Each structure stands twice: as C-alpha cells, then as structure tokens.
C-alpha cells in the first residue's frame, strides 16, 4: 500500500519535472533552411525577409504587438522564424522589405553598413550611412562582422501595414545586400536599433527574445 503510494508519488513528481523542463523549452522558433544553388563550397542562397511593426495575433498569440522579422519560406509564404541554416562558404543574397517606421540608433556609429560584399542598395540607390534618427532596424551578425541597415517607412506614408504578414501593396522600403558565410559555426544575429517600445533604452522585450528581433544563423 505504502509502496503504491510512493510509486504514485514518484510518477507525479516525474510528470511535474517533465512539465517544468518543457516550460523552458518553448520559445524556439523552428529553423528555416533556404534553398541553396551551386556546387558545394560555392553555394548561393537567397534570403527574403520582411520586417513588421507588429507581428500580429496570428503569428504570435502571446506578443501580438512586438516587432518581428518574417522570412519567406521555400513555398513562398511568410513565416516567423529567426533561426536560419545556411551553407558554409556561401554567398547569401538578402532582400529585406521593411514595413516599419523609424526608431533611431543609440550609437550613431552603427548607421553605416559593414562586412558586406559590395554596397547595400536601398530602393535602388547605394547606401553610405543613415543619419542616427533614421534607421528602422539593423540586421547584424557581429561574429561575421556583418551589419546592414533597414531604412524606415516615412511617418506620413500612406497605406502603412499594421499587423503581419504585410503585402507589397503597403508602404515599404526595399533593401538588398550580400554577405559571405565563412566556416561552419553557430552565430547569433541581432538588431541594434532600440525598437522595443516602452522598455528601458528600447532594448527589452522583442529586442531580447529569439523569434522576434534576435536569432541564430547556423552555418553548416
């Protein structure tokens, strides 16, 4: 009788421990692997990203008002994933459609693109540097030395996007740039524009959560 009670107790504790551990495992967005072309060692990858002011309840029920990146998956639909798997020693062409307004940088130095192959093109024109109050977001992989700016949608623009996913008909800016992945590794990427409304220094909330303004680049 006692043995049964202890066995039940152990089982209950085991379930609770499993529940506890699993509560820490949530929050991983699924990894996305864009299709790569070209031979091994000289691959090319196209990555298309959308930045939105608010991710919306359909894509993130617990944080519908947080800013986020969406990536266009291999089926052509927008999904919220900030963990991307890229091949090593590859050329990555990135296109960013930005639907969000300006927030501004905390450190103006980060207004100039770094570590790219060639220049960053914003709406067809090469970018030197953005004034510090202009950037809407940045896309940065510090370990690879990559930093690209995301130019803002003007405050007075018509037909702004409220919730993701946004369509090309809405007001947006287009950025294209290219970077090289190097050796295999596990690199983090982040945004340097403090765009998290309401948080101290704008760096809380989505700025500190993988799946919104932070993620990983797994180079394999």
């Amino acid at each position, binding site marked *: 009788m006692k043995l049964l009670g202890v066995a039940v107790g152990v089982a209950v504790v085991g379930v609770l421990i499993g529940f506890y551990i699993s509560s820490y*495992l949530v929050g991983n967005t699924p990894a996305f692997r864009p299709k790569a072309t070209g031979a091994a060692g000289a691959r090319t990858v196209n990555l298309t990203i959308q930045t939105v002011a608010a991710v919306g309840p359909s894509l993130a029920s617990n944080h519908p*008002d947080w800013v986020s990146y969406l990536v266009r998956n291999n089926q052509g639909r927008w999904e919220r994933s900030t963990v991307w798997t890229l091949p090593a020693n590859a050329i990555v062409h990135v296109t960013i459609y930005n639907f969000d307004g300006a927030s501004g940088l905390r450190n103006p130095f980060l207004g100039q693109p770094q570590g790219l192959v060639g220049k960053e093109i914003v709406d067809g024109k090469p970018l030197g540097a953005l004034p510090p109050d202009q950037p809407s977001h940045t896309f940065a992989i510090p370990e690879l030395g990559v930093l690209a700016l995301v130019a803002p949608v003007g405050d007075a623009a018509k037909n702004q996007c409220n919730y993701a996913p946004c369509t090309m008909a809405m007001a947006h800016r287009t950025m294209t740039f290219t970077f090289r992945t190097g050796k295999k590794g*596990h690199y983090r990427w982040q945004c340097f524009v403090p765009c998290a409304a*309401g948080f101290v220094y704008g760096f809380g909330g989505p700025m500190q959560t993988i799946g919104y303004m932070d993620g990983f680049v797994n180079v394999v």
Partner: protein
Amino acid sequence: MSTTVVETHRPIWRRLIGFNLLTGIVFGVVGYYIGWFIGHHITGASVAYFSGIDQNDISVTLGYLLGVGGFLIGLGFGVYPWARIRGYPPSLREKETQGASRYFGLCTDHKVVGIQYMIGIGLFFFIGGLNAMLIRVELLRPASQVFPAGQYLTLVGMHGTMMMGIMTSAILGPFANYFVPLMIGARRMAFPRIESLTFWLLMAAGAILTTTIFFGGFPTGWTGYEPLNSQANTGMDSYLVFFALVGISMCLLGLNMLATIITMRAPGLTWSRLPIFCWGVVSTAILNLLAAPVLIAVLGMAVFDRTVQTTFFNPQGGGSPYLYQNLFWVFGHPEVYILALPGMGIVLEILPVFARKPLWGYRLAVSGLLGVTLLSWLVWQHHLFVSGINSDLRPFYMLSTELISIPTGFTFLCGLMTLWRGQIRFSVPLLFSLAWFFNFLIGGLSGVFLSDVPSDVTTHGSFFSMAHFHYTIMGGLVFAFFAAIYFWAPKMFGYTLNERLGKIHFWVMFISFNSTFAPLFAIGFLGQPRRTVTYAQHLQFLNDWVSISAFILGGSMLIFLYNFVYSLLFARIRAPQNPWSSVSLEWQLPTPVPLHNFDRIPVITGEPYGYGSPGIAAIPAAGPAGGSA
C-alpha cells in the same frame, strides 16, 4: 491557554473546510486575480501609452502581493489579529491534535514548523538543483542550444535566486526552530505565530518564483542588477516579489530567534553555557534582522522603477546603477555569512559528540562567530572592485575582507583541536562535518584570492568566483545541512536513517562535489565568464567533466531521498532516545518529543560539553526510548 480538539470521524470534505493549506491556495489564487484586476484598471491608460510593451508590471506585482495576502488569510494568519482587534485578550492557541493535519496549516508548535521547513526547503532545493542540472546540460557543448538563450538565462537566474533565497533559512528554519527551544530549556519559541508565518511566506515566495517562466523569465541572474532589471519582461516581477518576501521571512525569523534565545533561556543557562549551535543561530539572526530590510528597500525601489517609471537606478533620469549595486551588496554580503555561520555552528556542535571531547576553545569559537558577524558589514564593496567605485577605497575593502579570515580561522582552530586526541567515532554526521572543513578551506582560500584586488581583476565575473562561492555555500552550508539531518533525524522523526546508505550518499556526494567544482577554478582562470551560454571550444573537455560530475552529484541527492523515504516510510526502525550518546540537552528528552517539550523546565548547572569529566553521563544509547526528562 490551549483548546483541545477531539479528533472525530468527520467526512473528509468537512475536515478540509477551515483555515489550512488548501484554503490558502484557493484564497491565494483569488487574491492574485483581484490584484491583477486592480492593476489592470489603474494602469489601463498608461499601458495603452506604452503600447507595444504587451506587459503590465503593476498588474502582475499587485497580483502577486494580493495573492500572498489571500494565501496567508486562507491559512488562518488573520484570525488572531482580527480577534485582538475585536478586543479579545492575548492568547496562545495551539492545535492539540497530534495528527498529520497540523503540518498543512498554521501550527504554533515549533517542532511542527521545523519539520514543515525541512520538507518545504527540501522541495525548493530540489527545484533549484534541477535547474543546475539543466544548466550543465546546456553547457555540455559550446554551440548547443538545448534551451533558447533567453530561457537559459532564466535557468541560471532561477537556480541562483532559488538557492540564495531558500537556503538562507536552510538551517535556521528546520533545525533552529526545532532545537533551539529544546537546547535552551524552553517550551516554545518567543513568537510562535510569526514562526509559522516565516515558513509560509517562504513557501509562497518559492511558488511565485517558480511561475516566472510563464511570464517570460528574467535575464539578470540572482543579483538583479539595474538597468537590465528595469528592461526585463514581466518575469522579473516574480524575482522582485520572491526576494522581498524572502527578506520579510528572514527578518522575522531572525527576530524570533533572538527574542527566544535572549529571553527564554532556562535558569542557570548563562551566555557562557549556551551551546555553540545557539551562538551560531544568534550571530546569524543578527545578520538576518539587520540585512534583510536593506534588501526589501532596494527591491522596492526596483519595483517602482519598473512599474511607475521612477529612475532610481537610471542615469538618464538622474539615478545611478551604482546605487543598486551598493545597496544590494550591503545586504548581499551579510547574506552569504547568513549562509556560512549556521554551518559553523552545526559542525562545532557535532564534533564534540563524535570526538567525545568538549568543544575546544569555546570562547574563541564564540568570538569567531561574532567577529564574522561584525566584519561582514564592512566588506561589501569587494564585489565591486573593478566596477568603477572610488579607487582609493579598494585597499580598505581588501584589508577588511582579508581580516574576515581571522575569525573564520577561529572556527577551524576550535574544530580541529576538538578532534585532537579525541576518541573519534565515525558516523555519517561526522563525515559531513569533516568534509565541511575541507570544503570551506578551499572556499575560504579562494576567497583570499578574490579579495586581493590584482588577483580579482583576473577572476572577477569568471567561473573562479563561481567555484569559490559554491565551495563555501554548497560545500559549507549544504554539507552542514546534511550533517544536521543525519544527526538530528532520530530525534525529529523517531526513526533511524540507514547508515550504509548514508555513507554511500556521503562519499558519492563528496567526491562528485569536488570533481564538479574544482575544475571551475581552472575554467575561470582560463577565461570563461559567468552566466554565458557559450564558451571557447578549447574549454569543452573541462566543461564536460564538470557537467558529468554535476549529474553524479545530482544523483547523490537521489540516494539521500531514497534513504529518507525508505527509512521513514518502510524500514521504520525506531531510534533510541540518544543514539549518539550526546550530553546535550535536546537528547535527554524522549523520542518523540512531548508536545510541551519539558515537564519541568530544567535548571542548568554545568557547561554544555561535559565529555570526559566525571559525573557527566548521558542517557546511554542503548537506553529505552521514551524515558522521562
């Protein structure tokens, strides 16, 4: 005045109605939602202003606070104040029933509170330990991402916060509450209801901290440094409320201990005859009482920074992050001595019993404990040596920190000389006490490294300081905790814990503990900072070694759990009244200890460690259980 309640066979649902844990939980949940609702309506408009933040710290904080209030009312803590408000005279209500239901509510019997503490602290210790195992799983490979980076930080913070908050009462809670009245010849503690309150506050706090992950966790580690604190998600509020409640619990616990030991000693028990464990309790209680309010104050300021946009700690609003760091460590340093001093008291209490000699250098040991208490207030800035504090002050803090090793050394001298030329009898409590000396030696010496400013530049914020405090806190406090459990379990529970399992537990724990934390010194010297989710590739072998050892260390806890459950539920070998043949007062009482402890308050005529002197004889180990006092 006591009321006797006769145990009738009422149906179970009727027995559940009343002030108890279940009612407490129900009222607590209701209280949470009331608080949440109020917070939501106070800040509705400002939440819209800060749109995009998707969190309402006022709601959550108020929810927690009113939840705790509801919890305490449900347990029955409101009954006596309400009676007094209505004009009833002071009374001391006690539940006279000897049933297990006493353990699930407000009970004013200090022995019940002691056992409640032991189970409650054990529960949260295991949760904190589980977090540690998960941390080590994450650190098995540099590039692994078992847990998302943000959740990893919450794991680290949860582990540290849970341990630091719960283990401060690890010895004062179970053992001081149970045994201080028995050792000083009293029938109860000075404030029995407050005693129970400290326990239930701690349980509420632990439950609140466990819910942090559902609010997003917190990224600051147990120290909660600003401004990162203000930046964090709602999970940070769990941390702030947890620590504030722990602070209140600590303060009241210290108050109770001091009041009891100062005012309720039996006739003849002068200060120079007080058992050294009680001196350890006194010195810890002084720190509890005085340091906890500083913690509550600084956490309150942090709550205001987070909720109503004050800027105590934000330089852009005129505040300073240094303010938080200094206030926190004014509490934080005495806090670690709150962790260390009871351990010293325990091992000095246990050694005479097993060396069969009086405690060597009693007065020196007492001055060692009190010296640590005094000096612990003067050292806190050694946590801030490279943070940009006033440069000239650092040699002073280096000196004061190194001076603390002198009174600590007194404990070592007295303990070691007690063993000298003794008649040492091995037992599991003695093994843990001996291990305490070894672990605290390593911990203390590494503390000397950290107190030396040039050496601190190398090791601050690295795994070296982690190894240091794990050696002193886990190697010191936790080993002393187990020594105390094995030592006093026969009296507390009336059953013997299996000795062979206990020895296996000790050896597995001691070896795996050293194997886990000794390499951390090297890892720190080799440049790995604390609280990092990734590390340099060349450190992987050492990290793996540490992780595997940590899993074995966790396993040793399971051995203990098995022993505990098996001995108390299945083997049930009745313990003799005085299995260790101790001459100490608590062992002269029968097992189980009667409800009012002593039939007649004893008169103390001699000093507490009379081993070797003629005429002093304890009731022998083989004597009958349940003799008269």
